[in-house]
């Protein structure tokens, strides 16, 4: 069998090369789709930090994605802030929201944690829906300008915006990889396996979970900021529990606890949504059926299936 590490490195380089040369292969429309996949890949990876590495299943992760979208969208639209200020501000707002929600949600565990994260995110959704003078209610905020980097290429075009997204997502992915391979990341895995043991070893597990919660919120916020620039629009749907549920599915479908798995899961769901909505309006039902099928037949996701297949092959050889 080939060395696992080398396979991963090879696959990463090949994947990156493919992502860089994508604009030469695809037309503008599919490039837009690829951009969306990358953004949701980042979003799914941020949730994986909680589900896969810390063992905290949050059902309200769209809260941080959406609140960052709104913050950046409002700052860019109403105050004319440039991307250099509006992007960090959006991410910061997401982090602060996560800190506030984390204080409440992390007091509880298990099912209470699920319910509280879901309930808190719906509060934000309610605000986005009801506070029309600020958020535009269910009409949302249209015509958010694309960022202007002062480069010769306008980000209003799909190709430059694709590279803008790719660079930011690549940096974020490197940071996430750094987090999960650090001693901090190892401690998170320890908490996932057995929190009582980590407590007995003298770890202040609450602080670890709190920091993981904020980090996940920050990266989700970054994805939200990219998405509002990509779509040039934000509406309460960005925060709705259906979006939280969608990103949860991306994580599980890809395989929790592997970062790349959830990114792959995100790509599959975005592609599927794109294909299905071309044929029927029943996307929600298809999504529901995918949920049930994944749970029944691929509970550890795509990466889990691949791992099992390779183990079987390895056993034969």
């Amino acid at each position: 069998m080939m060395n696992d590490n080398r396979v991963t490195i090879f696959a990463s380089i090949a994947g990156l090369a493919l992502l860089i040369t994508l604009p030469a292969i695809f037309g503008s429309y599919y490039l837009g789709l690829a951009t969306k996949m990358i953004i949701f890949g980042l979003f799914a990876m941020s949730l994986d930090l909680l589900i896969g590495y810390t063992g905290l299943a949050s059902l309200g992760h769209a809260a941080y994605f959406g609140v960052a979208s709104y913050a950046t969208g409002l700052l860019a639209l109403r105050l004319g802030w440039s991307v250099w200020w509006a992007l960090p501000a959006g991410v910061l707002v997401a982090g602060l929201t996560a800190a506030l929600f984390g204080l409440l949600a992390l007091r509880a565990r298990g099912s209470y944690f699920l319910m509280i994260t879901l309930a808190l995110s719906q509060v934000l959704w309610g605000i986005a829906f009801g506070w029309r003078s600020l958020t535009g209610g269910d009409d949302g905020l249209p015509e958010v300008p694309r960022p202007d980097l002062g480069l010769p290429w306008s980000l209003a075009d799909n190709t430059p915006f694709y590279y803008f997204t790719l660079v930011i997502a690549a940096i974020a992915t490197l940071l996430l990889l750094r987090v999960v391979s650090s001693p901090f990341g190892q401690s998170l895995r320890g908490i996932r396996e057995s929190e009582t043991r980590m407590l007995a070893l003298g770890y202040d597990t609450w602080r670890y979970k709190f920091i993981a919660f904020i980090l996940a919120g920050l990266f989700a916020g970054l994805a939200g900021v990219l998405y509002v620039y990509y779509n040039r629009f934000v509406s309460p749907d960005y925060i709705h529990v259906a979006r939280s549920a969608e990103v949860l599915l991306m994580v599980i479908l890809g395989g929790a606890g592997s970062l790349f798995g959830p990114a792959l899961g995100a790509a599959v769901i975005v592609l599927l949504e794109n294909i299905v909505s071309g044929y029927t309006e029943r996307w929600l039902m298809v999504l529901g059926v995918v949920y049930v099928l994944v749970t029944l037949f691929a509970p550890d996701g795509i990466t889990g299936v691949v791992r099992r297949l390779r183990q079987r092959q390895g056993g034969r050889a």
Partner: protein
Amino acid sequence: MHRNRACPSGHDRPVPISLPLIVGRCYSRRRNDNFNETSAGQRAMNFWAIQTLNGISFGMLLFLLAAGLSLIYGLMRILNLTHGSYYMLGGYIGLAAMRASGSFVIALLAGSAAVAVLGVLMERFFLRRFHLQELPQTMLTFGFLFIFADLALWLWGGNPQTMAKPPMLAGATTLGSLTYPTYRLFIIASGLAVALMLWLFQERTRVGAMLRAGVDDEEIARALGINVSLLFSLVFAMGAFLAALGGVLAGPIMGVYPGADFEVLLLAFVVVIIGGLGSLKGALIGGLLVGLLDNFGKVFFPEFALFTIFLPMALILAVRPTGLFGRE
């Protein structure tokens, strides 16, 4: 007064799939239309009495939902995200039965029974395979939530529909100087009756004793020869039945509309977060509390109605993370 304010999203527009808690205000406006204005001296007192009764009747509907959610969690540790869908489907099926037969009793029975069967099927064929596995159960119930939401939208369309009140309960009842819609009193009475029956069932019957044993320690209960597997199906059927009953009962005052599933699921969550999962007493007291907070919140602070529910929830969480009557 607030109830004369324009509804922000407009009544006549089709309600989006994801139903707005804040829009709930518009429904509440309709709910409160049954006011009966009396002489000036009595008005202040009547106002409080009427709003309190409104809150209690809504709280009883929330109790019906939360009781099932809580029972199911208590015995099986399943957080059933499909519970709001049972409520909504109960409403739709009840409405269809009402239109076909013209009888409210048949509507109540058909809606609740059909959804109870649905609940049993879900438990037997799907949830049972993932006993005590939290994440797969969450995924499954989420999946069914989407499937039922879209199915309802497909079959019954996007416009809110109202159910006719049964003629016997359509009028108003006079209580001293107060005139109040009979139907809402009927809801309060139904809720109290269900609470009493559930209590008697749990405390006084053999199956209820088995249920308590199963909640306390499932494995020992199995070892003692209690058919826990049958108990699971029974409790799931009861939970779905109660939620659907709530959905049909709510039909004449709140209407049946897409998005009700998410809306009531969220409120039921708040009820059990406050009252504690697995406790009937918690479901009743939590339900009444949330019903009252919701109603008075909408009356006094319509712009911030959500916070009158969520602020107390956050406070209780800070003091008791497992709710008022919950167990670790």
